[in-house]
């Protein structure tokens, strides 16, 4: 087929991009070459709209071993150990085919982690669906949960935490973000940079099939009513093969055979071979007849663009082929020497002894387009003036029932019970807490991880929302007693070609950057997912932040369940009564406008570090951050989990009970302390100038509010527990 502009446009390239290709090559590309350009230059692989802004994120720090640019980020957790982690989106495939889309999302991110030599030790996910009333939501949720479980459970990696939300902006474009943490020895980390000439290039794993061809291009386009036709672009996962691949790779990595290794993820063989060569400033030559194929007569075009799963590309040391082959044979995996590194600085493909493509690698990588897209700033919305009398008409108990049973607050046990969260025998905090926590096998250390997003706040004011979500991650780590180290981010947005959506992106990234910088909580890996929209309607901006922290002595880990009658409960951080954009405002007052709660980074850091100091001093029995739904929601969950009550009074502030209990001011925690430690705790809080309220006392089986409203623990449980399971069954 003769390539022309129309064919390039059909590949998702812009006309001017096609012109640029012809200029760079000084000729018209053939179809295989065009396919390769379209795969490398799409948004998903090239970050062409986001690169300029991502550069501004803080990515280094004392604990950072590897920042963005590798398969995953790496942080130091001392004693020669390191944690490799990353989050990635699989949104578009999951909407088209929820089971396979979600499953391969989980498979892909685990591969990114074990490619670096790390054994995956924990999975997390952040999943977002349309309104619970929308006709597709239930099936999509079921499919995604089954897919995540189907893959992660089979791999034998525990899924330890996650986040699920419902919002009508995801009706036509759900989000599935999967995150994996792996454990590796600092001196055994593997990278994707090839080195040396004439080194054998090895293909291992599954055979290449026709599935997922142009998956990355699909992921870089908007949806329309013809979406069903895109089903063949969704990859099909096989977790069994991936489990074998994991064990085989780790076995090979124990030796010294590997120079570079890269998994075949988006854009398959194309991006993996080009990335390795590009990083090593080398050329690469592949003989496509040698690629193990599932079907006969696959064309070079199909082989290069297939996104079949569970495959790896490795550059080996010369003479190590037999050692490697023996290991992959043992695990019943395909193994083939398919090419070698060269000094041509080109990617050269051969098929049936003919050269079928030859492209200078720098044209695909360094010369890929980069856009400074137009974007629009979002003004801070005006505060709503809600009359104080308004609040008086509400009965707290009724409001509490509505809030605790809200789909975005209710228990997600129906979901996480379907994920194996205890395999590997080191899960010491399971889903449903502030962070999931796993021990570092055989040591006294533990790693905490959380994934968070706050699309409502980001939508109302992206700059504030971006900061908020980083702070929430930080708080969730501190609440379990972990010292926050670094984050990974998955940036889910609408079309970068629309100024509003691009503006949301730019300002969220700015907010994320400011918070990370201030909190010394750098970004070490991430992924951008644009075009999350159906027709013209974009999703609410949804950056998902995956935070990781370290607990040096796992016996000091904190959980949120209230522990003991007569213990005291303090609220750390100041409550100003910010109701705008709270769950209360949106769902009870039906007020969707107004600014999100303000972020004060000084207080955030100071409050968080002080809570951590109290925890490390063994002064805290339970802790939970205050987030969506306000103080009373946080406290209710602590009661439910501890199966124990609380009696509390609103401090004498100039605000109504409703404002005090349901407002969503930031930087706050609820902590439980023993009465004998009160003086000590107060003196530390005062010394650090941390605002706190003496809030209440733990009692038997009831929540008693201001001496008048009584809610039993069973009532709290009934409000919070059943919405999701009733909805799904």
């Amino acid at each position, binding site marked *: 087929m003769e390539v022309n502009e129309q064919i390039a446009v059909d590949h998702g390239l812009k006309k001017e991009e096609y012109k640029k290709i012809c200029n760079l090559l000084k000729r018209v590309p053939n179809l295989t070459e065009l396919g390769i350009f379209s795969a490398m230059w799409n948004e998903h692989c090239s970050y062409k709209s986001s690169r300029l802004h991502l550069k501004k994120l803080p990515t280094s720090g004392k604990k950072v071993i590897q920042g963005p640019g590798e398969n995953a980020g790496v942080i130091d957790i001392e004693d020669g150990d390191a944690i490799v982690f990353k989050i990635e989106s699989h949104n578009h495939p999951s909407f088209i085919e929820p089971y396979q889309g979600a499953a391969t999302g989980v498979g892909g991110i685990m591969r990114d982690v074990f490619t670096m030599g790390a054994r995956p030790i924990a999975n997390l996910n952040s999943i977002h669906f349309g309104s619970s009333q929308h006709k597709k939501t239930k099936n999509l949720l079921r499919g995604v949960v089954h897919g995540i479980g189907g893959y992660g459970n089979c791999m034998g990696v525990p899924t330890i935490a996650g986040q699920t939300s419902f919002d009508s902006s995801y009706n036509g474009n759900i989000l599935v973000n999967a995150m994996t943490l792996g454990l590796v020895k600092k001196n055994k980390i593997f990278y994707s940079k090839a080195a040396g000439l004439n080194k054998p290039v090895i293909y291992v794993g599954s055979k290449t099939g026709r599935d997922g061809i142009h998956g990355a291009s699909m992921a870089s386009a908007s949806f329309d009513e013809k979406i069903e036709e895109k089903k063949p672009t969704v990859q099909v996962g096989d977790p069994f093969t991936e489990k074998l691949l994991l064990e085989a790779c780790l076995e090979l990595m124990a030796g010294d055979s590997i120079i570079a290794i890269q998994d075949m993820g988006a854009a398959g063989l194309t991006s993996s071979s080009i990335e390795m060569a590009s990083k090593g400033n080398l050329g690469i030559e592949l003989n496509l007849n040698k690629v193990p194929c599932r079907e006969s007569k696959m064309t070079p075009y199909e082989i290069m663009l297939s996104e079949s799963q569970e495959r790896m590309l490795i550059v080996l040391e010369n003479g190590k082929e037999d050692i490697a082959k023996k290991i992959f044979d043992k695990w019943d995996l395909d193994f083939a020497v398919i090419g070698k590194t060269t000094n041509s600085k080109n990617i050269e493909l051969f098929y049936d002894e003919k050269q079928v493509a030859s492209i200078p690698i720098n044209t695909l990588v360094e010369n890929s387009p980069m856009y400074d897209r137009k974007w629009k700033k979002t003004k801070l919305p005006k505060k709503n003036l809600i009359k104080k009398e308004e609040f008086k008409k509400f009965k707290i108990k009724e409001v509490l029932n509505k809030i605790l049973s809200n789909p975005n607050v209710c228990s997600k046990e129906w979901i996480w019970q379907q994920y194996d969260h205890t395999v590997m025998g080191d899960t010491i905090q*399971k889903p449903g807490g502030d962070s999931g926590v796993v*021990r570092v096998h055989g040591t006294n250390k533990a790693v905490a991880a959380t994934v968070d997003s706050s699309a409502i706040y980001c939508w109302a004011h992206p700059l504030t929302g971006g900061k908020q979500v980083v702070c929430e991650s930080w708080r969730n780590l501190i609440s379990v007693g972990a010292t926050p180290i670094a984050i990974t981010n998955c940036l889910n947005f609408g079309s970068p070609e629309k100024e509003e959506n691009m503006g949301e992106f730019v300002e969220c990234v700015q907010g994320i950057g400011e918070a990370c910088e201030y909190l010394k909580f750098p970004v070490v890996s991430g992924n951008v997912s644009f075009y999350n929209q159906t027709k013209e309607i974009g999703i609410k901006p949804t950056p998902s932040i995956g935070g990781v922290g370290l607990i040096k002595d796992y016996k000091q880990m904190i959980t949120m369940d209230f522990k003991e009658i007569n213990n005291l409960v303090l609220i750390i951080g100041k409550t100003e009564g910010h109701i705008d954009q709270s769950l209360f405002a949106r769902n009870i007052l039906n007020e969707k406008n107004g600014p999100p709660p303000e972020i004060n980074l000084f207080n955030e850091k100071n409050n968080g570090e002080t809570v951590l100091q109290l925890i490390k001093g063994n002064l805290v029995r339970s802790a939970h951050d205050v987030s969506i739904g306000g103080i009373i929601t946080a406290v209710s969950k602590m009661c439910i989990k501890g199966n124990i009550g609380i009696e509390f009074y609103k401090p004498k502030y100039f605000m109504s009970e409703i404002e005090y209990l349901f407002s969503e001011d930031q930087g706050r925690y609820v902590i439980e302390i023993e009465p004998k430690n009160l003086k000590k705790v107060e003196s530390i809080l005062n010394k650090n100038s941390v605002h706190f309220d003496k809030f209440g006392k733990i009692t038997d089986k009831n929540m008693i509010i201001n001496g008048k409203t009584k809610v039993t623990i069973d009532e709290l449980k009934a409000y919070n527990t059943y919405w999701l399971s009733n909805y799904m069954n």
Partner: protein
Amino acid sequence: MKSAVITFPGSNCDRDMHVALNKFGFKNKMVWHNDNELPKSDLVVLPGGFSYGDYLRCGSMASKSKIMQSVINFAKSGGLVMGICNGFQILVESGLVPGILLRNKYLEFICKNVFVKIDNKDNPYFKNLDKEVFELHIAHNEGNYFCTNDQLKEIEDNNQVAIYYCNDNGKTEEKFNPNGSLKNIAGIFNKEKNVLGMMPHPERMIDQSLSGEDGSLFFKNLINNIK
């Protein structure tokens, strides 16, 4: 005491079982599915996981793997063979214990703590256990035990039911059945009671920082019985 844990392609609780056995005093060896011979052992364990990806039927392909002939011979000669979760499925598929394991009643994977009742103590596994109700952990998609009426009669006549799902008081009613198993059966013996298949994972409950510690009681008792 020597034990052996078999690793099949797709096993994923093999390490956990290895850790647990060693913790309670066994000298454990990992054995590859493609080996012909078992090392000299007092106990052989088929661990949990997804052997052969659960393709065809859970446990069916593993039951035909090379090492299984030795395991079957070992069991027939009276050796102790224990299958946990996927290991139970392999035991069923290889005919070492009766019945089959269907998909869970609500067609969903279940990972949670459950209570189980162990009152059948005339066997090397549970002899000397001084309580009846245990809190153990399950994590499976196909744990719904089923057998024919004739088989059930034989199983009950021979006192082969090893473990029942129950509540914290040991009541074995249907509502405490997590997966639809016939008669709340969570584990079963062969006729001679040297082979035990069970869905719960005692190896995940071996220290107080995990979901619970009742698994420790199980292992401590087991090694004392074997000594």
